[in-house]
């Protein structure tokens, strides 16, 4: 069978690539093909200099430009997609006035000094422009070492004002708005082979499971925000990659009266918008999770599958008593998230098995009348940071405001995401009061034996474990 080429559209031009490595990052490809407008500041997803816009879907399934880190996306994952880079915003020879509005605003406010971060900011602003929401959050994943950010903030504000004054997102005849309205939304299947590598993108769960059975050594690729680091730096080879991005079961969000079921490969930014307001603990943690470019790619399944002790979402899922739907050709099973992690980066997942979805119950614990729940993340930096300690709490109260059900879950304090079960049990039946919380604090301080690392000492982490619970009480009762 002749190999199918890897096809995608870059700035309106369709490219057919043969014999490229499907795990080569888009950024590397752009650089090699003399498209140097997109910059590399780190290759780790941290700086946003490599930001490009990729056509994806919003929460309603409509096409949308999404900012993403090109240093973390392998070529295989962009097959069949439309990409816009900074070079695509201006046409050679166009007059000054025909800069894209976000570019014009950045020139006018002095949004660049050394300019190395600028194309990344431009692309984040560009994606936000067509969402009609050009705010500070749209550039939270872009670092700048020169400007102090203020002129960039001013540019964003200027663009917003322009849109408001016009009463529409894009000016008439805006070619990107036109492209958006005509864009396809579904991803085609892919079976791409280079000399040494294979990249599959099945579009049916059954086919995925068969592939997995056939190739138990294959690497499952969801958003690639963990795996992409290894690709960006060639830290290991990927002979066989299977993308989870085109399987309907893994891409759906289903809501019933009693639970929400989230497909394992749904990008976090979609969860953020679609489920907003349902679970305060989830909303809050997603707000602190990495930055926009990463959330546009990262998935819940990947955050669980990677089984990091500092993953931010497992504590939330533990606090909400989530269950996981796992599937393999041998059948499906449903397990409580509390039983999923078995040790440092170890899970119960068997070869050939995949996380299909995550179910979060929406009901109170039987016998309870009121729920209080929230989550916290303590890092060194305001955004775009990894946790020192993450925590998520759920307290269900009975009619007498006594604690009827308690979940106190943490990340960053043990080899796995973990619950303070002893303290949860101790809390049962006690009144929900500052006094109870103060009594629980010394217990909490001693439940875990965290490590000291460069993010924080063991002693600090232990105090945080206790203080975060108090913070939760103070905030929720004020």
């Amino acid at each position, binding site marked *: 069978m002749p190999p199918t080429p890897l096809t995608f559209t870059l700035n309106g031009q369709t490219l057919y690539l043969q014999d490229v490595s499907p795990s080569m990052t888009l950024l590397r490809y752009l650089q090699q093909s003399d498209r140097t407008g997109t910059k590399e500041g*780190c290759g780790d997803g941290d700086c946003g200099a490599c930001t490009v816009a990729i056509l994806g879907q919003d929460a309603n399934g409509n096409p949308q430009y999404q900012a993403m880190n090109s240093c973390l996306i392998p070529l295989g994952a962009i097959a069949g997609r439309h990409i816009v880079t900074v070079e695509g915003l201006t046409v050679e020879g166009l007059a000054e006035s025909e800069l894209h509005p976000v570019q014009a605003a950045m*020139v006018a406010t002095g949004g*660049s000094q050394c300019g190395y971060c600028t194309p990344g900011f431009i692309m984040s602003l560009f994606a936000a422009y067509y969402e009609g929401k050009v705010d500070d959050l749209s550039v939270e994943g872009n670092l700048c*070492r020169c400007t102090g950010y203020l*002129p960039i903030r001013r540019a964003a504000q200027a663009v917003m004002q322009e849109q408001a004054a016009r009463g529409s997102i894009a000016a008439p005849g805006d070619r990107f708005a036109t492209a958006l309205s005509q864009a396809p939304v579904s991803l085609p299947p892919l079976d791409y082979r280079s000399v040494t590598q294979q990249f599959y993108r099945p579009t049916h769960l059954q086919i995925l499971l068969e592939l997995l059975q056939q190739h138990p050594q294959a690497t499952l690729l969801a958003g690639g925000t963990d795996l992409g680091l290894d690709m960006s730096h060639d830290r290991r080879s990927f002979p066989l990659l299977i993308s989870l991005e085109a399987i309907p079961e893994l891409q759906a969000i289903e809501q019933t009266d009693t639970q929400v079921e989230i497909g394992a490969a749904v990008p976090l930014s979609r969860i953020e918008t679609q489920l907003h307001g349902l679970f305060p603990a989830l909303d809050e943690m997603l707000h602190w999770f990495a930055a926009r470019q990463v959330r546009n790619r990262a998935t819940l399944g990947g955050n669980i599958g990677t089984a990091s002790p500092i993953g931010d979402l497992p504590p939330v899922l533990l606090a909400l008593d989530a269950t996981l739907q796992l599937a393999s050709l041998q059948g499906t099973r449903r397990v409580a998230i509390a039983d999923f992690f078995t040790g440092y980066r170890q899970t119960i997942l068997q070869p050939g098995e995949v996380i299909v979805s995550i179910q979060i119950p929406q009901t109170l614990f039987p016998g309870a009348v009121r729920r209080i729940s929230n989550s916290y993340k303590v890092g060194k930096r305001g*955004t775009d940071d990894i946790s*020192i300690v993450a925590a998520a709490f759920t307290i269900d109260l009975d009619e007498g405001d006594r604690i009827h059900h308690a979940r106190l879950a943490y990340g960053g304090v043990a080899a796995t995401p973990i619950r303070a079960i002893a303290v949860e049990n101790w809390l049962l039946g006690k009144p929900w009061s500052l006094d109870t919380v103060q009594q629980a604090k010394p217990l909490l301080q001693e439940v875990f034996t965290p490590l000291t690392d*460069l993010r924080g000492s063991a002693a*600090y982490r232990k105090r945080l474990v206790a203080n975060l619970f108090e913070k939760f009480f103070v905030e929720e009762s004020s």
Partner: protein
Amino acid sequence: MEVNMSQNISQNSNQNATTSVVGTAASRKDGRAKVTGTATYAAEHQLSGLVHGYVVTSPIAKGRIRSINTTAAAQAPGVIAVYTHQNSPQIFKPANNWMNSKIYEARLPLSDDQIHYAGQVVGMVVADTLERARHAAHLVQVDYEPQAPQVNARTANYQPSPPWFGEDFTFNSGSFSTGSAEVTGIEAQIEATYTTEMELHAPMEPHATIAHWQGKDAVTIYEPSQYVLLTQKTYAELLGLAVERVRILSPYIGGGFGSKAFPWPPSILCAAAARDLGRPLKVVNSRRQMTANAGHRSETEQTLKLSATAAGKLVLIEHLAKSCTSPVDVFPEPCTIVTPVMYAAPNIRLEQQLAVMNVGTPTFMRAPGEAPGMWALESAMDELAWTLKIDPVQLRIMNQTQSHQRKNLPFSAKQFTECLEQGAERFGWQGRSPEPRSQVSPSQTQDDLLVGWGMAAATFPGYRGATSAKVRLLPDGTAHVLSSGNDMGTGAYTVVGMTAADALGLPLNQIRVELGDSLLPDGGIAGGSQMTASLTPSVALACQEVLKAAEATTAAAAFEKLRQTGRAAFEATASTAPGEETKQFAFNSWGAHFCEVTVDELLGRLRITRWVSVMNIGRVLNPKTAASQVRGGIIMGMGQALMEECHFDPNTGFPVVYDLATYHFPAHADIPRIEVAFVGEPDLNFNPMGVRGVGEIGITGVAAAIANAVYHATGKRIRSLPILPEKLL
């Protein structure tokens, strides 16, 4: 590289020739190139036949190489060459004396089998693609004989520091110079030790070099360089070439902050290996390799003693500063540079000490000396103010000095009091509660947070160097300004253009500026905040000279002559340099920072919620680019204050901070509204433009202002940076 004014979409497009451009908030000339991604940085130049080098670095921090096996690497696909100390390409030892040449690290790459720090370059693999070079670099097998490294600044062995580029910071006055121990009038005293951790410049553009030889005796080097002409001379010496056989191109620099003025080992190796290979070669430092191979600011430990009368008059200042350097070069962090310029005292003792550690070589980082020095001094002043129960603003006004006490020269055009008073006014400082833990803020909504207000002073010397610039008038009615000086984001393209526009009476969009090419007249260094102060006088003079050459009084008349005579161009080159004024005056810029922080004591979470800075920098050529420079300095100071720190594994000596996920600097969300204002007059003693630099002063005093606000909020005095959440719990 040129930037064309007509591409500028700023409000200046309808500027007419009669109004002055200098002093207006003109938009950056290079703005368009940057927002469209067409500004080309060193690593992005495309050359046919380009091959890629990837350096092999040492995982151990001290010891020697027993043996190296390169067989596997050499046989890997695509590999063209593998270099180690056993087959290093030829590199000549440069004079390394600033005049003729300067390299960041005196030891030449691959010069022997000794290992001095983790991350040291021990080899380089060249291959047809970056991926293959990187892959093969991991196949180079090095057998090391390790020794226990010293990577702990607190236990290092300190010795009196040598002078810093000719300037000796040791200073004794009053009783310290006479040796009499008797100092009278002391009614209050504080003594404390302040520390900072190792900081990285972390420019967004990683260091990169492309070397393209034309035969064996001429080379073009694309490298971000803050000092193009000295880099040219340096490469000429390193490669054994005549200076004019080396061309350096550095039109755009993706941030340097002091780390991109001279070649680092990977760049030197790149240039030398490219000759050996006879092919254009590119070597890019990865973000991780930058930790050891792109400089840093040393950790510092400073002990300050301030003694004063009850009324607050300083009687004695003692400042002992320690910093560290690498085993292969000497770079003291000159913290005590600020002490004799800030406050007057009859008895002053300054001392600097230096220790050697197994780390890469430290270097200039934005406000070298001033940034950590002002952290300690301005924290100590705050402590003294609390001890004396005197408003810290008043304490500073009362004790400022009108002369540089070490150089014994009066300051020119000093408006420090105005900075303090206007800053206090704009901030609303009079609403400050005089007790810690009692401040309330109108902007504060959450009542479980503590609020604190803090302030600190800022200062940076006015440096100026010799420069040249060429101006060319063309029949098409445009003027071209040419210089090797460069713009690493400072706004030089813009202020140079504005200076020429005014001097020639032309609108800004008729000026073209070309910078960053060693073929052009020496524009000096973009460092020490002196590019504007040094270069704009030469630009202004060259404009006058070109009108003289044209025998015209206006540019319009000169253009007319060109058209009538059919002549191709009028051209003139002019040079300016500092003169006698440096013997008559001391030059410094001044400033004051005021800030508000909130502290959540349960989590140790600190937020900066408000910031006001007032600066006295002489003449402000462009308030927009100048304010942006100050703001950039302030956020770097916020980083220094709250998060920036690099650490090493005490056993292996390997850095445990090596990328942007572990080396944090402020993101958008960390930054409050920052208000920057300027006061004062042009400093015409300093140069004809009256301008002092603005690039570095912003960072000075920032960390102290924050720590002082933290004390006000919590009653806790933090004396070690960064102020991590842990320290506030």
